[in-house]
């Protein structure tokens, strides 16, 4: 058991290492370097020299990778080219805002989606299932910016319940942020709910067809108890990994949704950094997102471990 947990942590560490190398290497593969890319036609003379010195580009790639990773581990992501400040000073408030948005969406969506998935799976091919599955299909396929635009049109422009774009400063308090966050959270949750529900439904249908559910029926267990005691725990196990994977959707969706609502999070910061060709900043944010994502996957793995006795105690 401890070795299984260690193994999961080991893989998470391996993945983060791998991702950081790929990201670093991608930037290294760039024709020229971070500074020439940022400065474009001004990349000459003292400006270039100052930039190279500030970014430490005169040192070997290996040394810079080591510094980058070691720094990131301590919360130091280097120096922004555009803003001319240490990156960690710029991202903290943004990180908090994004975490608020994504966290709230996940917190609302995951339990709700699991519940809907169970309801649809249990009533397979009946009206409830068909309408839920249809709605999920729509939510999954319609791009976030389209859903967001539609919501803005209805709730911000026609009804004027919520602001269409966020106009508070990144450092605003929670209560100030709240009205701005309602529509983005709805958009993000819709996609999440759709994906998780679909998976949960499929998993429930699978388990409902199993021998042990038939056995429970023949044992005289009432249907409701069959669902909660025999079906749900077993259906959760395969669904967990997909829940973790949909977090990837959430993270990508965050960027789009933040842009639509002009929400002051990491996503808008990243897009701005791309416009500005501020590569150290882009790299830093991509790395943060990756770490979150790997962390969520790890959490899902550990939960599966807790739920599934077959994984926990192999043999006896």
């Amino acid at each position, binding site marked *: 058991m401890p070795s299984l947990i260690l193994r999961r942590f080991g893989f998470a560490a391996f993945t983060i290492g791998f991702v950081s190398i790929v990201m670093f290497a991608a930037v290294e593969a760039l024709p020229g370097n971070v500074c020439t890319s940022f400065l474009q036609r001004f990349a000459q003379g003292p400006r270039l020299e100052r930039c190279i010195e500030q970014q430490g580009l005169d040192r070997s790639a290996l040394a810079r990778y080591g510094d980058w990773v070691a720094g990131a581990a301590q919360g130091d992501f280097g120096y922004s080219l555009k803003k001319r400040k240490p990156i960690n000073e710029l991202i903290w408030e943004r990180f908090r805002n994004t975490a608020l948005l994504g966290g709230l969406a996940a917190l609302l969506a995951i339990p709700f989606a699991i519940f809907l998935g169970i309801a649809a799976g249990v009533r397979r091919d009946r009206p409830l299932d068909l309408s839920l599955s249809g709605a999920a299909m729509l939510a999954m396929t319609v791009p976030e910016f389209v859903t967001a635009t539609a919501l803005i049109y209805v709730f911000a422009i026609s009804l004027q319940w919520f602001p269409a774009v966020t106009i508070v400063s990144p450092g605003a308090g929670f209560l100030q942020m709240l009205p701005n966050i309602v529509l983005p959270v709805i958009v993000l949750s819709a996609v999440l709910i759709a994906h998780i529900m679909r998976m949960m439904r499929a998993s429930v249908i699978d388990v409902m067809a199993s021998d*042990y559910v*038939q*056995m429970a029926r*023949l044992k*005289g267990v009432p249907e409701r108890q069959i669902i909660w*005691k025999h079906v749900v725990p077993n259906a959760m196990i395969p669904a967990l990994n997909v829940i973790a994977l949909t977090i990837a959707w959430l993270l990508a969706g965050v960027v789009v949704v933040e842009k639509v609502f002009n929400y002051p999070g990491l996503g808008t910061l990243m897009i701005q950094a791309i416009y500005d060709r501020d590569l150290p900043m882009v790299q830093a944010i991509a790395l943060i997102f990756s770490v979150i994502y790997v962390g969520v996957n790890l959490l899902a793995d550990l939960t599966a471990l807790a739920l599934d*006795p077959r994984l926990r105690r192999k*043999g006896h």
Partner: protein
Amino acid sequence: MTEPLIKIEDLSLGFTAKDGRQAPILRGLSLELAPGETLGIVGESGSGKSTVALAMMGYLKPGLSVFRGRAVFDGNDMFALPEKERTSLRGSSIALIPQNAGQALTPTLKIGQQIDEALRLHTALNADERKIKVLELLNRVRLPSPEDIAERYPHELSGGQQQRAAVAMALAGNAKALLLDEPTTGLDVTTQAHILEFLRSLAKELGVAMIYVSHDLGVIARVADRVAVMYAGMLVEEGPTRDVLRAPNHPYTRGLLASIPRLGEPGIPASMPGVPPAVGSELTACAFADRCPQVRPHCKDGVPVLEPRGECQVRCPFAGEPAPDHLSTLREPQVREARALELQDVAISYHKPGFMNRWLKKPEPAPTVDRAGFVLKKGETLGLVGESGSGKSTILRAIAGLAGTRKGSVTLGDGESLNAPVAGRNRETLRRVQMIFQNADASLNPRQSIGEILMAPLKLYFGLKGAEAQARAEALLEAVRLPARYMSHFPGQLSGGEKQRVGVARAFAANPEVTLCDEVTSALDVSVQAAALALLTRLQRENGSSYIFVSHDLAVVRAVSDRVAVLYQGRICESGPAEQVYAPPYHPYTQTLMGAVLEPDPDTAPTLLANDMSEKAPPATGCPFQRRCAKRIGSICDTMVPPAQELADGHVIHCHIRMSAAGCQEAAAVPELMPAE
């Protein structure tokens, strides 16, 4: 006469197609069962036997519906009962013991929790009383250390233990009737024998009625008071077990009994031609007419009715007439002195030391197969017999080059080495050894036509293409008695027996010297199995190929083999000419196996030697059977590899007990027979 406990009246049920057509699985079935009685329902796959059993609980698999008739249990019309009452009867008054307990127990709940659930639903006990009752039930089904078992998850038990746990669950509600749906199918023979004896004594002890569904007449003979024989969703014969098995009236029952290989009779059992009508097809004549050796024109006029005959009922108007004998055919082996294959001291291990283990120098587990050695002569059949995990298939895979050998040598008759895996063998060497697989369904590519399947080896080994290959493939089909039009068919269009014939034809396309048969008949119904065995025997006579025939079924091995080797945990226990291995003196393991075999004869009882413990890995030293042996003589069994004692004619027994050709065993150890439970 007492009121029957279960009464099925003219029950028809099945699928309904979109256009409203009914495809019946059961056709007008009537059955009665008295309290405390055990009824065996026997039939081949698709006969509807499991469907009947589930119908007694008022349960229909998804998609099925009742067309007409009733199923009455204890005065309740099960299909008319409100859902709530039906649910409360299930698991209490009438309980199911499922076919595959491993899959019928919920994987995320502990054994104790699952039994507790049944108790909570069907008894008025409080939590503490239930806790005690759970242990009591586990004790009653003779599971060791109930406290420990109750805390375990299903996957942590062996197959036999899972089955016992399922029985404990069924007993939770003081059932009047137990439904057993092939509860021992898939278990090893020794485990099966133990479970059956236990169920028999349980039925007696509790006075509970049992409905025992099985495809295996041997099992039915052992447990049932009465037998119902099903064919194509109908009862064809029903009556007291002894009457039905000793003097069968219906031609189908007779054919079925004749097609079962027996331990005491060498030779290929008589086979039944044809296949049963498809499930759900419309019947206008006797369902068995196409396969019946006594068929008359009158048989095609309509479906015959069930008529009483003595204490039995038979669905055949000509049941009283003398039946032709079903004779088994003796094999006429043409064994030559020349060797076809030789294994010397072979060890096989699937264990690949991982990086960490190599670095830490962890000791390797004992190899899966060790000290395997035998000689196969040209034209000879060697039977390899053993329970699951005995390494019999592993040896075949090593010969075929699919598993690497760790030690020892495998050579063809002319000295050509087979030590290398497939990648290291040349095409000619590969051609000389061919394999036939257990499951014909899985061994034929569903996306290739039969023609393509047969032509692949022809192209690979002989470079045959086009019309030449086509002609040769058609000749192969002819050899396995399949029509040439099957060339363009796909495997999905063939029956199980036909698919296995294609598998045989593919192996013979290479014109092999050694043919490896891996449980080739165990997925087939008995009536089809006999035909497959006859086919293999005929092909051997025509081609002079040597066979290694692997099976868990001692009677089947006996039917086809010249020589036999008995394996336990990857080690050969005993080997020699078939007639000597199947007669005393025995290796203790051979004796255990033989004792556990069930024959379709109500007057034979199994002898239970050794316990039914399942072992996951061979012991590191000494005799492989040391942990279960009923005759172990001391620590020598644990530490020393038993010597090979050669009796007459190459009959070798690996045991520390001294054997003599006369059959008596001189060792001090007196065989301690364990009483049948």
